[in-house]
């Protein structure tokens, strides 16, 4: 089996490729910084190949397609993502353009081009990484939340059309993960121990990708938060505001 994982150098993506390689799969690892992948590429004896792609740059994505035109995939995990936290009006416009390009435009484009261009094998799987914020909202990261809503609804919209072409869709809605990424954007006083272990989450995603499920809300905390949001959306949103927005020190992007 050949898998493609974006945002593979760090965090969740890193855990995903390590587990895929351990299971004996071929991995195409994509990131904007592939130096951290070098050791893995060497030790995998060709099973892991790293590609430098900047998801904020459409031409960089086009070059990736030029180089992989003959390649087909059984599993694609569109994991690359960035954030921007702070008061909405304090974050520069350029950071928003980059955020939307990386979190929304790139995965939508990759999915459409991979499926439409015949690069997905029969009975393949494409995984979108949305966020728990799709259920609960995210004051203090309204544009980040919007990109994750876009991904959730794009994934839902393409389920049937992609399935007709042999590719099933899985959408993951993780809460906070214990990664450097989450650390950077977390509000003051947030406890890292309460965030999900990326290795555990990676295992859950790979297991769900083998099943027939459309969606994965990983962990009890995510499921409880989702339930709270569906029963009392207003209360949940104001709790999110208190937990995040009111504690932000300043913009991080």
């Amino acid at each position, binding site marked *: 089996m050949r898998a493609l994982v974006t945002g593979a150098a760090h965090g969740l993506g890193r855990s995903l490729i390590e587990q895929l390689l351990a299971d004996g799969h071929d991995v195409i690892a994509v990131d904007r910084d592939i130096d951290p992948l070098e050791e893995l590429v060497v030790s995998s004896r060709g099973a892991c190949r790293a590609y430098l792609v900047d998801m904020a740059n*459409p031409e960089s994505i086009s070059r990736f397609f030029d180089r992989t035109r003959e390649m087909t995939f059984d599993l694609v995990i569109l994991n690359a993502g960035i954030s921007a936290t702070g*008061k*909405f*009006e304090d974050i520069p*416009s*350029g950071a*928003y*353009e980059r955020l*939307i390009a990386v979190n*929304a*435009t790139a995965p*939508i*484009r990759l999915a*459409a*081009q991979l*499926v*439409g261009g015949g690069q997905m094998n029969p009975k393949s799987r494409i995984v979108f990484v949305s966020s728990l*914020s*799709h259920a609960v*909202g*995210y*004051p*203090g*990261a*309204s*544009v980040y*939340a*919007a*990109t*994750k*809503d*876009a*991904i*959730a*609804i*794009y994934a*839902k*919209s*393409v*389920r*049937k*059309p*992609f399935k007709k*072409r042999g590719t099933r869709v899985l959408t993951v809605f993780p809460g906070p993960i214990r990664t450097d990424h989450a650390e950077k954007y977390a509000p003051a006083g947030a406890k890292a121990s309460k965030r999900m272990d990326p290795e555990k989450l990676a295992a859950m995603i790979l297991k769900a990708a083998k099943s027939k499920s459309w969606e994965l809300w990983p962990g009890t905390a995510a499921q409880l938060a989702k339930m709270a949001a569906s029963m009392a959306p207003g209360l949940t*949103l*104001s709790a*999110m*505001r208190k937990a995040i*927005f009111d504690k932000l020190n300043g913009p991080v992007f």
Partner: protein
Amino acid sequence: MAKPEPRPHTILVTGATDGIGLWLAKSYAGRGHKVLATGRQAIADDAAFFGASNIAYVRADQSAPDEAATRIAAAMAGLGWQQLDLGILNAGLGWAGDPADEPVAEIERQIAVNFTANVLITKALAPWLFIGKGRLAIIGSTAHTGAKGFATYAATKAAMAGFAKSLRSEWQGRAEVTLVHPGPTRTSMHHKAGLSLGAVRAMFMSTKRAGKSIEKSIRKGDDTRKLSRTFGWRSAMSNPKEFQL
């Protein structure tokens, strides 16, 4: 109980050369308000085009989001406005068809116009809205819950719905945010999106009805309002081929 009707003096309507936006611009201007209308076409004579002397026009092509936002802020300053009472983010476009066939350029264009530009315009409007505790009104779509024949369009409308939800919470006490989801409306958007609707179009909401409902939601100070007629956007958009009569 309905909140008392706000009496905005300065109103921005994006995408106001056609459809719902044009109706709203003319309607507010007809009641004596000052309107700044935007669109992507060049208009030589604002007064002649809109048939009103209190509608100013600025060309703001949202496929170039940063430039559009900058031009709108400059136009408000150029008109001598001190604050913005109501900003209606109405401009939008779509592409209809099998999502596996959706061209990259169409994906990029819909996200730029319907999502990125609205975020950057909101950022440009924020200081103008905060002065008089104004209202931002975002025109979403009933497609925001998903539509298989309109996948990227639905995604951009979901983005705006989520954006409105979080922003409303952030802006508590500083500015209001209204989100309206119109159902299928008889505008030129479907034709531009590559969809031939034929006779079904007659069942869609008229532009006037959509416009009036949006005005009502703004007047009442609604948070989120869904406007829909006989059948949902979802059914029309999820099976576009069925509607090529």
